[in-house]
């Protein structure tokens, strides 16, 4: 067991890395290399610990001494669930650390590399510690460290007004969430049996029914809203498409890839481990919110013209997918617990849904990290985030293009890539629900299935659009035309993520049993033997459908070159004649290309009731109405949630503040009078 010794090393190595990057801040080049190499080493240590716990078993525990006995034991415990999330954090952390060595050159001379390096180390460490903390107070401390360090990284470009205001929105929303989580923990703490304790081991005894019904429901809702804020569930998502793109791209990759997943981790832990899922409405609520999130996320991603905002909205969508799986698992688990004897097969389904959740979590952290790193590489080369100003980058940035393409294929759920396997597992678990006799479930689950299908198709369209507008055709601006390939460290970082993403999909038959060991530690039911049959994945309830990513992969490996050679050679060589495309007499330029807005316009029309688009075409004529000098086009979509949910709330708060502001008279005498009156009243009341 190396993990026991490695865990303190992990903590000291990242703190040391943070310190080193501050010490070396005079030498920018060295500072970048040192701080991010240290972060890569930390990630490797985390990877070793995670793999050891996952493959060998056992637990790693590390206690820091506290002087306040009432707060319990400040212990970090790496059990299987923690180890799985550590795996996601460390593998993406490794890629992003390597990538950052090159990427931060973008900021050379403008912003301090020491700030970025040290904050990155702390952020990475806090991510590890959030998923291993085994005490509610310790967890909240780490959670806040994570929120604050990521906030500071979001506002890293401190002279950029947009970054700062996005950061403010983020920090407000995240603290709102933290407040609700704290209240939920306090409710749970009040009901811990025996001596009140903040230790998770005491929280675990809550599932034995120690909590009154109302308190359970309150804790459930508070946790859902609190963690949903961090995860970016609709309608709490508004900060996410603002803050994730405003951060430097390596940070966006970490935030979108793994930070939102810490909320998933803690929800699994709280619901399945602490509270126990016995009410079926919990799962249905989660399912409903998640379906809306998935749909709204992908719809906005499709309309977005900023490459990083499109990716951020896609994160909202994917979090929605993950929560659909979570909701399904909760529904199955609640029906199983209601009647364990009659509904034994539902336990299998709950496990299947939870496996899908964890698989998609890992897969999404890899490919979304990859895509954000790719977007960062594009920005590094072109210095713009506007899709309409890109184009033609595949020729100029060959490797970035290939790696981004792999990410796009994965997220669009094309077999045998990792995104496909996750969504397939999710579909299987949802499609097998005909066994539950409850009209509400029978209505909502098919809706979730439909949303899943629609989302998948729209996501594919979205990434065709993003990839096409960025990398294909001719450059639409000078920036894009002058782009050159990014440094090798950046390509290496992306390459590792892409490789891991592909392998995760193809080798999923070997990975699913490992995830099964994680879910069985949570649910107590192992379905690996039913799920994996040789090289074929099949759902546990009979001959419904089965799938083997390995075989699909092998077939593709064989089929793609075969198709290529077959089309080239079998029909015999045809004579090739080269000439211009027919262009109606107008010379073709990059302005005649299919633009990103043009690509998504049909979808804009179909979903106009959601988007409420506002389009304006302005034409300037010369002296003749037949000859137009200039046509300008602008199209905006209405931010529904900001306008109809947040704006009224903000207006209400401001109105209240005005009311209260009346007492701010500005005169010393008035203030003194307030104090005097309060003093008198207190003296008389407490005489």
């Amino acid at each position, binding site marked *: 067991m190396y993990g026991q010794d490695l865990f303190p090393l992990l903590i000291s190595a990242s703190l040391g890395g943070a310190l080193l990057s501050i010490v070396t801040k005079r030498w920018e080049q060295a500072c970048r290399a040192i701080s991010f190499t240290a972060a890569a080493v930390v990630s490797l240590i985390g990877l070793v610990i995670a793999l050891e716990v996952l493959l060998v078993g056992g637990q790693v525990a590390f206690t820091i001494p506290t002087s306040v006995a009432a707060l319990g034991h400040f212990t970090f415990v790496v059990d299987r669930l923690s180890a799985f999330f550590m795996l996601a954090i460390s593998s993406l952390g490794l890629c992003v650390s390597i990538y950052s060595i090159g990427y931060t050159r973008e900021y050379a001379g403008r912003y301090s590399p020491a700030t970025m390096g040290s904050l990155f180390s702390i952020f990475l460490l806090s991510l590890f510690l959030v998923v291993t903390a085994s005490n509610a107070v310790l967890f909240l401390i780490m959670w806040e460290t994570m929120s604050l360090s990521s906030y500071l990284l979001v506002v890293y470009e401190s002279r950029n007004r947009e970054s700062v205001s996005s950061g403010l929105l983020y920090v407000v929303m995240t603290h709102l969430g933290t407040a609700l989580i704290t209240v939920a923990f306090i409710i749970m703490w009040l009901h811990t049996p025996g001596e009140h304790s903040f230790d998770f081991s005491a929280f675990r005894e809550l599932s034995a029914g120690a909590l009154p019904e109302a308190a359970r429901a309150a804790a459930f809702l508070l946790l859902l809203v609190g963690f949903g804020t961090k995860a970016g569930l609709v309608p709490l998502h508004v900060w996410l498409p603002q803050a994730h793109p405003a951060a430097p791209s390596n940070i966006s990759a970490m935030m979108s890839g793994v930070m939102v997943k810490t909320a998933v981790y803690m929800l699994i832990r709280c619901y399945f481990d602490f509270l126990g899922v016995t009410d079926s409405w919990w799962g249905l609520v989660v399912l409903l919110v998640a379906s809306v999130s998935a749909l709204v996320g992908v719809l906005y991603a499709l309309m977005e013209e900023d490459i990083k905002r499109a990716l951020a909205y896609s994160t909202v969508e994917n979090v929605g997918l993950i929560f659909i799986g979570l909701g399904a698992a909760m529904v199955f688990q609640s029906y199983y617990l209601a009647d364990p004897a009659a509904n034994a097969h539902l336990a299998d389904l709950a496990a299947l849904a939870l496996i899908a959740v964890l698989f998609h979590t890992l897969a999404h952290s890899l490919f979304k990290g990859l895509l954000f790193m790719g977007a960062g590489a594009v920005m590094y080369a072109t210095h713009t985030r506007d899709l309409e100003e890109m184009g033609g980058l595949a020729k100029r940035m060959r490797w970035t293009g290939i790696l981004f393409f792999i990410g796009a294929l994965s997220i669009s759920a094309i077999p045998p890539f990792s995104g496909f396997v996750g969504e397939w597992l999710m579909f299987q678990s949802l499609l097998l629900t005909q066994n539950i006799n409850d009209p509400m479930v029978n209505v909502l689950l098919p809706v979730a299935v439909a949303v899943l299908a629609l989302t998948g198709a729209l996501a594919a369209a979205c990434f065709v659009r993003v990839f096409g507008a960025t990398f294909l055709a001719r450059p639409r601006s000078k920036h894009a035309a002058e782009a050159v390939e990014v440094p090798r460290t950046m390509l290496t970082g992306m390459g590792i993520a892409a490789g891991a993403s592909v392998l995760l999909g193809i080798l999923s038959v070997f990975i699913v049993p490992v995830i099964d060991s994680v879910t069985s530690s949570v649910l107590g039911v192992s379905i690996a033997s039913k799920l994996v049959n040789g090289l074929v994945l099949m759902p546990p309830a009979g001959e419904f459908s089965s799938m083997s990513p390995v075989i699909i992969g092998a077939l593709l490996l064989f089929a793609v070159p075969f198709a290529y050679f077959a089309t080239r050679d079998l029909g015999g060589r045809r004579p090739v004649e080269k000439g211009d495309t027919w262009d109606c007499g107008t010379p073709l330029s990059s302005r005649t290309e299919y633009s990103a807005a043009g690509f998504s316009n049909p979808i804009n029309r179909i979903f106009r009731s959601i988007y409420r688009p506002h389009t304006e075409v302005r034409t300037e004529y010369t002296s003749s109405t037949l000859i137009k000098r200039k046509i300008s086009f602008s199209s905006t979509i209405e931010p529904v949630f900001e306008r109809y949910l947040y704006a009224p709330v903000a207006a209400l708060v401001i109105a209240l503040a005005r009311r209260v502001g009346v007492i*701010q*008279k*500005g*005169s*010393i*005498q008035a203030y*003194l*009078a307030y104090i*005097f009156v309060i*003093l*008198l009243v207190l*003296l*008389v009341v407490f*005489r």
Partner: protein
Amino acid sequence: MAGNRMLTLVRLFALQSLALGALALTVALVTGSAHIYAVAILTVVIKGMIIPWMLLYVMRQIKVDREVEPVVSIPMSLLLCGGLTVVAFYLTQPIIFVGGAIDTITKNCLAISLAVVFIGFFTMISRKKAITQIMGLLTMENGLFLAAISVTYGMPLIVELGIFFDILVAVLIMGLFAFRINKTFASVDTTILRRLRD
């Protein structure tokens, strides 16, 4: 409160401080403890002489008007102060008369001291000029001092010395502020500070 001249106000403060010194002297004679003698002398010297002199100096320097300029009219102030004194007696009644919580010869002074604190506070609220606010604060301090000496026969000498030093420096600083306010706004009327809001 009835005085509508600055000079009267300062003189009244000096008188109050001298009375306080006399009270401290009485306590010292009764208890015979040495440090209260020192406190009594300090009170007379610092509060009865130095501080009034400093206030008069500041007033001469900034050529403040003689008028006090009350926010609340003088008859109304007098009525309110009477009310506050009643409240002070009402508040301290259970402390003074019930049980042997406090057992000193001057325990009835507690109500008076609380009334002095209230009236000092009321002076700060109801008068416009910065100088009158300093006066109000000093009156409050006198009230507190009275409470301390009458309830517990005085605090340890070191604490007393600290308080005296404190009040001296406070008057210095507040005098300085009055100078600055006068220089900036050409008046020491604190209602002008209203503009600093928002």
